[in-house]
C-alpha cells in the first residue's frame, strides 16, 4: 500500500486529529495559565468573598459531568448506543447546570461587580472565560447528541465523540485549578 493510501485511512487521520486537538489544548492552557498568574500577581494571598456552598456544588456538578462524559465515550467505543446517548445527555444537562450555578447564581449573589478592585476584575474574568469554554463544550455536546441520535457514530468511527470528551475533560481540569484559586486559597477580602 502506498504512503498516500495509508495517510487517507481513517485510522491514520484519527492520530493526526488527536495530535491537533491536544496541541490546541496546550495552547489554550497558556491562556488560562496567564489568568492564574494574573490572579496571584494582583491578589496574592487574598481571595474574593464568595458563596462556599455554591462553589462546592458547581464544582461537584462539573466533576460528575466528566464521569458521565467518560461513560458515554467508552460506551460508544463498545458500540453501546443507548448508554452513549444517555451519558451525553446527562453531561449536557450537568454542563448547563454548572453554567446556571456560576453565571446565573454566583454572579448575582457576589457582593461585588467586575469594576470592584482586582478581585472583582479577576473573578468575573476567570469565571467568565471558563464559562465561555463550558458554553462551547455544551454546544459541542448538543451537536454530538443530535448526530448520535441519527446513528452517525460507530464503535470504530466516532472521532467527534472522542474530541468532545477530551475537550470536556480539559474544561474540567481548568476548573480544578480555578476553584481553589478563587474559593480556597488566601484570606477573604471584599
Amino acid at each position, binding site marked *: 500500500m*502506498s*504512503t*498516500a493510501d495509508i*495517510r487517507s485511512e481513517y485510522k*491514520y487521520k484519527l*492520530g*493526526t486529529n488527536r*495530535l*491537533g486537538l491536544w*496541541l*490546541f489544548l*496546550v*495552547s*489554550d492552557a*497558556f*491562556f488560562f495559565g*496567564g*489568568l492564574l*498568574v*494574573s490572579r496571584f*500577581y*494582583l491578589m496574592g494571598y487574598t481571595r474574593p468573598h464568595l458563596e462556599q456552598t455554591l462553589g462546592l456544588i458547581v464544582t461537584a456538578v462539573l466533576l460528575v459531568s466528566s464521569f458521565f462524559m467518560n461513560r458515554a465515550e467508552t460506551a460508544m467505543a463498545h458500540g453501546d448506543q443507548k448508554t452513549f446517548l444517555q451519558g451525553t445527555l446527562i453531561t449536557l444537562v450537568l454542563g448547563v447546570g454548572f453554567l446556571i450555578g456560576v453565571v446565573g447564581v454566583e454572579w448575582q449573589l457576589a457582593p461585588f461587580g*467586575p*469594576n*470592584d*478592585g*482586582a*478581585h*472583582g*476584575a*479577576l473573578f*468575573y*474574568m476567570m469565571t467568565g472565560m471558563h464559562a465561555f469554554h463550558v458554553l462551547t463544550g455544551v454546544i459541542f455536546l448538543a*451537536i454530538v447528541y*443530535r*448526530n448520535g441520535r*441519527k446513528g*452517525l457514530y460507530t464503535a470504530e468511527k466516532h472521532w*467527534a465523540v472522542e474530541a468532545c470528551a477530551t475537550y470536556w475533560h480539559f474544561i474540567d481540569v481548568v476548573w480544578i485549578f480555578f476553584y481553589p484559586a478563587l474559593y480556597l486559597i488566601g484570606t477573604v477580602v471584599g
Partner: protein
Amino acid sequence: MDENKKVKFLSLGLVRGIVFQVIGSLAGMGFVMLIRLLMGLPAWNAEPVWVGGTFVGVFTFLIGVGAFSDWFKWAKGEETSDHIEADPSQPKWAKYYNISYDHKVIGIQYGVTSIILLGMAGTFAMIFRTELAAAKLQFLDLGLFNSLIGLHGIVMIAAILLGIGAMSNYLVPLMIGASDMAFPRLNAFAYWLNAPSALLVVISLFLGGFDTGWTAYPPLSARAPLGMQMFFLGVYVIGLSSILGSLNIIVTVIRMRAPGMNYFRMPIFVWASVATSIISLTATQLIALSFQMVMFQRLFGMGFFDPANGGNVVLFQHLFWFYSHPAVYVFILPGLGMISELLPVFSRKPLFGYKWIAVSSMAIALVGFFVWAHHMFTAGMEEYLRVPFMYSTMLVAVPTGVKFFSWVGTLWRGKITFPTPMLFTLGAVSVFLLGGLTGPPNATVATDLHLHDTYWIVGHFHATMFGGFMFPFFAAFYYWYPKITGRMYSEKLGKLHFWLMFPAFYVQSLWQMYIGLLGMRRRIGDYDPALNFDNSHLVITIAGFTIFVSVLIFIYNLIKSAKQGEVAESNPWNSRSPEWQLPTPIPEHNYTDHPFKVTGEPYDYGLEGSTYITMSDK
C-alpha cells in the same frame, strides 16, 4: 481564453466576505444597542457598540468567504471533500480570491497579502520619516504622528507574520513530501482570519487612532481614543490565526513526512518553521490575554491595570512581553532557517553542522521563553529580576553564534555564485550580525538604563528584523519565483533592488544608533533643534526612502516578470530539495503522482554520487 471569462464580481470570496463583514458589523452593532436598551442603558455608546459590532463582523466575513461551510456541514453530520473544486465559470486567477484548501494557493495568498501590508506599513513610515526630517512639526499633528508609528509597527508585524505564513505554508509540505497540510480547512480558516482583522487595524486610524505605539501599554492605552480598541481587536484575531497556523505546521511535520524523511533529514527550513510554531502556538495566548484585559478594563471598568482600582500596570508588561519577546524569534527563526537553506545551494557545499543548526533553532525558541523582562529594566519591575533576566538574555547569543559559525563554515572554500537570492542571503547574514552585536548592550542592565527608549533601540531592532526577516524573505521570493510562476524574475532589477536596499539599510540603521547614543528618544514627533539632530534625521529619511523605492522595484519585478520573464527551467538552481524535482507548475496534489523515498543526506552538495531523494514516477 482564460482571461476573457467574465468575472462575476460578487461571486469572489473576498468580495463576498467584505460585504458580509460590513453587514455583520452593522447587525452586531444593532444587537449590542438592543441589549443595552434591555439593560436600561442609553442605546448609543461608541465603544461597546463598535467593539461588539466589529467582533461579530469578523465572523460574518469568514461565513461570507466560506471558511465555516465545511464545519457547519460536519455539525449537521454531512461528509465533505478535502478539495474544493474551482468554479469552472471563473478565470484561473479567481482561485486566489476565493477560499482554497490547497496549501500552495494559501501560501501565495499569504505572500501577496504580506506584501500589500508591507507596502502599507512602509508608507506609514515614509510619512512620519518625512515629518522627522527636520525639527519642529511640519505637517503632522502629534496624535496622527503617534498613530502612524503605532500602525507602522503593528502592520509590519502583521506583514511579517503573514510572510512567515507564506513561506511555511508553501514550503513545508513540499519540503517534507506531503500532499498538503494536515488540516487543509483549518489552514484556509487561519489565512482568512487575517483579512477582516487587518481591516480592523487600519480602521483604527479613522476612529481617533491610538497614541501608544504598537506596545499599547496601559495606563495610556486604557484611555486612548476608540481606535485603540480596533487595534486590540484586530491584533487579537491575527493572533488566533497565528496560533491555528502554527498548530497546523507542527502536526503536518510530525504526521505527513515522506518515507525515509526522518527528522534529521528534513530540509533545515522545516526545523526553523517548527521552532517558530512552538512559540506561536503557546506564547500568543499571553498577548491575547493582555490585550483582552485592557479591552475589558475599558468596556466594563475591570481594574486589571488601574492602580486606583486594585490593578498594576507592570502586570501588563509581563504578559505582553511573554509573547512579544519570543515573537521576535517567531519573526527571525524562519529567516535564519532560510539563510541556512540557501547558503549550501549557492556555495555548492554541504551545510556545515546540520544537527547543530537544527538544535540551535529549538534552543533559541526555548531560551526565548525566559528572557522577556529585559524590556522592563526601567519599568519599575521587581529589582531582583533584573540580573537573572540579563543573564538569560545573554544566553541567546550561544545558539545564535552556532548559526553564524555554521554559515561561515558553509561558505568556507565554497564555489560561490552571486545571483539575487544569494545576494540577499549574504546581506541577511551581514545585517543580522549588526543586529545581533548591538543586542548585548541592551541586555546589560547598566547600559540599558541609558539606551532604553532611544533610537539606539530602533536601529538595533530594525537590524534584527531586516537581517532576520526582510532580507531572507526577499531571498526566498526570488529563489522560489521560477518554481511558483514558471518564469524567471529580472536579474537586473533584482540586483538593483539589493544594491539600493543593502547600503541604504546600513546608513539608516547606523545613523539611528548614532543619534540614539547621543540621546535621541524614540517615538518623538518633535525634537529640539538645539540637539543638532536635523542633518542626521535627514540622512535617515533619505535612506528610508531609498529602501522604500527598492521595495517598489521588487514589486514591479514580481508583477512584470510573471508575464514577460524568461521561461524558467524546472530546477534552475540545481537544488537537491524535493520540490525542485517536481515539474513546473507543481501538480495540484504535489507528490501523489511523483512519490519519492529519502535515500541520503539533504545538503551533500558537491559530494559525488550522493543522492537526497529518489523519485519514482508512477
